[in-house]
């Protein structure tokens, strides 16, 4: 049994410590908002936050999480920054298919929590690990700026 603190709740899961967090979230706990995209930390679809820092959950063994607080897309709206990001995303209608957007929002919220006024270079640096196959990048950039001003 491993204890994980997810979105403010403690969950006990039965899985070996080398199991990536992604699969514990999705398949063991049924929290399917976090997405599988590549399995090798190339696409960012599986992004969650650990103590506020964005992390790729597909390569993060649960045994290494320890006491750090996990935040997922299901919980990010409860943070002021997360709520602002979600609002900006809808105001600018960023989303197309939406599959990558959980990861995009988690990365954007982590960026804004640490840097309330990112410029284009900051946005590029924080967001270039998140692929969007629908090509919503132009609006992601605008929405981050909108959320920063909100």
């Amino acid at each position, binding site marked *: 049994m491993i204890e994980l603190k997810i979105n403010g709740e403690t969950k006990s899961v039965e*899985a*070996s410590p080398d*199991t*990536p967090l992604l*699969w*514990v979230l*999705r*398949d*063991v706990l*049924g*929290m*399917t*908002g*976090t*997405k*599988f*995209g*590549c*399995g*090798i930390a*190339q*696409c960012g*679809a599986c992004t969650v936050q650990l103590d506020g820092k964005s992390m790729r959950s597909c390569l993060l063994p649960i045994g290494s999480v320890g006491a750090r607080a996990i935040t*997922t*897309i*299901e919980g990010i*709206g409860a943070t002021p920054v997360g709520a602002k990001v*979600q609002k900006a*995303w*809808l105001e600018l*209608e960023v*989303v*197309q*298919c*939406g*599959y*990558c*957007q*959980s990861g995009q*929002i988690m990365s954007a919220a982590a960026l804004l929590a640490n840097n309330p006024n990112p410029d284009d270079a900051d*946005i*590029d*640096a924080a*967001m*270039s*690990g*998140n*692929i*969007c*196959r*629908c*090509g*919503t*990048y*132009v*609006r*992601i*950039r605008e929405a981050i700026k909108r959320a920063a001003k909100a």
Partner: protein
Amino acid sequence: MFETDTATAPAPSRRTILKAGAAGGLLLVIPLPLARADDRTKAAFAPDAFIRLDTTGKVTLVMPQVEMGQGIYTAHAMMMADEMDADWQMVSVEAAPPNTALYANPMLTVQATGNSNSVRAFWKPLRTTAAAARAMLIAAAAKQWKVDPASCTADSGNVVHAASGRKLSYGALANAAAKELRPADPTLKTPDQFKLIGKPLKRIDTPDKVNGTAKFGIDMMPEGVKFATLAASPVLGGKVGNVDGQSDAMAVPGVKQIVILDDLVAVVGDHYWAAKQGLDALNITWNDGANANVTTALVWADLKKAAASPGLVAKKEGDADKALSNGDKLEAKYELPFLAHAPMEPMNCTVHVTPDSCEIWVGTQVCARTQEAGATITGLPLEKVTVHNQLLGGGFGRRLETDATEKAVRIAQKVDGPVKVVYSREEDIQHDRYRPSYYTQMWATLKDGKIDGWLHRVAGSSVVARWLAPAFAGNHNIDFDEVDSAIDQPYDIPNLRVEAVRAEPPGVTTGFWRGVGPNNNVFAVESFMDELANKAGKDPVDFRRSMLDKNPRLLNALNVVAQKSGWGSALPKRVGRGVCCQPSFASFIATVVEAEVDENGEVHLRRINTAVDVGTAVNPDTIRAQLQGGIVFGLTAALYGEVTLENGRVQQSNFNDYRMLRINQVPNIEVHLIKSAEPPGGIGETGTTAGPPALRNAIYAATGIALRRLPIDREILSGRKKA
């Protein structure tokens, strides 16, 4: 606001009849009214298979067209709500169950979402249905009030009798409306009467997509579900030989079962990770079969050999041979590679097979074919196969195929209880149905600075011949998609011939890929136009303008984009602008890409403008988004996209070697919408076809290097290799 669960198949008496329309497409003929109370929704009023109205006033649109990011749930709901005068806040949508008779795409004859035609195909049928519903609601109110229906109006979910100040809600009228006769030919609104169409309404599918609650196929969790992942033969078409290491795999914590079929091995576990670890623990040897020696070089040798002979004539005007036999002649041969789709949601399918049922959860562009596949494999009658269609985490044509579903059903036949089969990204890229490689030869002669003779010979695999065989046979064995945007190229050319050569690559199954045939033909035509302009000593935009007399909408788009992009103004060294004009998918689009080519041959996108006359813009914001995203999709292919084969195996595997454009590489993309009251054109694929030729022409302008093959070759652009 929307539901994606499916209803049971509607009663067979509710037939939608398809018949050939005058315009060569198909018209949806609406059946007699039926007031069937749906068991699940308790709809009081269901005038046909598309619209349900309950007594609370909730209107549900049953959507045959699937939502894969293109915004069709919203666009179709707007078309329906506007024509029905429904209250937009009371409208929701639901994915249609499989039923070709009821839900076939009028332009494809198959229950399919593709070819950028969902708005076009349903523009009239869906609005006619909604207008009939409105007329029946008005008739019901008028009867109750004992007034002339013509004295009543409808507005935002109410019928109003202005003279007496009376008003009844649609919900209150639902039961009575169900007893009214459906008008055969209800009057449709004129564009000036539209209240919703043309407004940038917020999408109805996106709120759930920003908080993790939206469900894609891969998110299905039926009670007791197990998780599986699979390996098919790395050599395309190979079979399973020996499977060693089974005890090692079974020893992986969480592994439950190994499924060995003739062409694949799957491992089932308590979660995907267990299944993947179990699969990796196996040592599978494969019988490679007939394709063990297939290479990219072999595919291209075959293709070029086939293309050396004339193809079937798809279009002929004037005398191309005569015009090409004298004058200033130019020849160019363009090459496009195989491409994988790589939707962000890897291929997956959840299936529960029992002795007398097969239940499938999947996001698919072909719902009815999915049901048919389930029935064929299990031997069950069609009605015992249920399909719950879900949101698609990208389609791009990949989900027009049922191959992944077929594999999942076959695996599920061996598993007790429901099983979710998820492809690894590597499996997804290495077992795709690939965009065909195309070899396109262009010949033209110039006379007085304009094109006089033109021969366009396209050679490649025919997807239509496999996917929609009757449409291939019915078109004299010419694949309409292979020649799309070639036979209808936009320029005034007096002597023209378009030829199609079908050449199937050994071992590789091809499929539709966003932008389909126009991807190739727009690239060839627009690249060639720039080379011809250069030969004529003309500016590329002026050269095109001089031959667009018969295409005023495209000419206008070209003029708009030239102005917005600052066409002709000075640029720094090694920076160029490139243009692309296209009338594809019945929309008129001109695009300018500005790009820099650095000394190392790397290409940097600087600015992108596109002007679009899509006709009536149902939701202008969605159109902007589709252009922006489509251009990125196309430019990704132009800059990186290529699937290659060695020893019958696809060499690419994941996003490290099948690269995608990322946010740091994408500049602002400005979309200029041209106002128009013409019927709507398609939009989902147009940006994808526009981006690559515009970029290729920008590189040509920046460097003078005429690239004739994609993806771009940085060795050539750096001067390290000759073009």
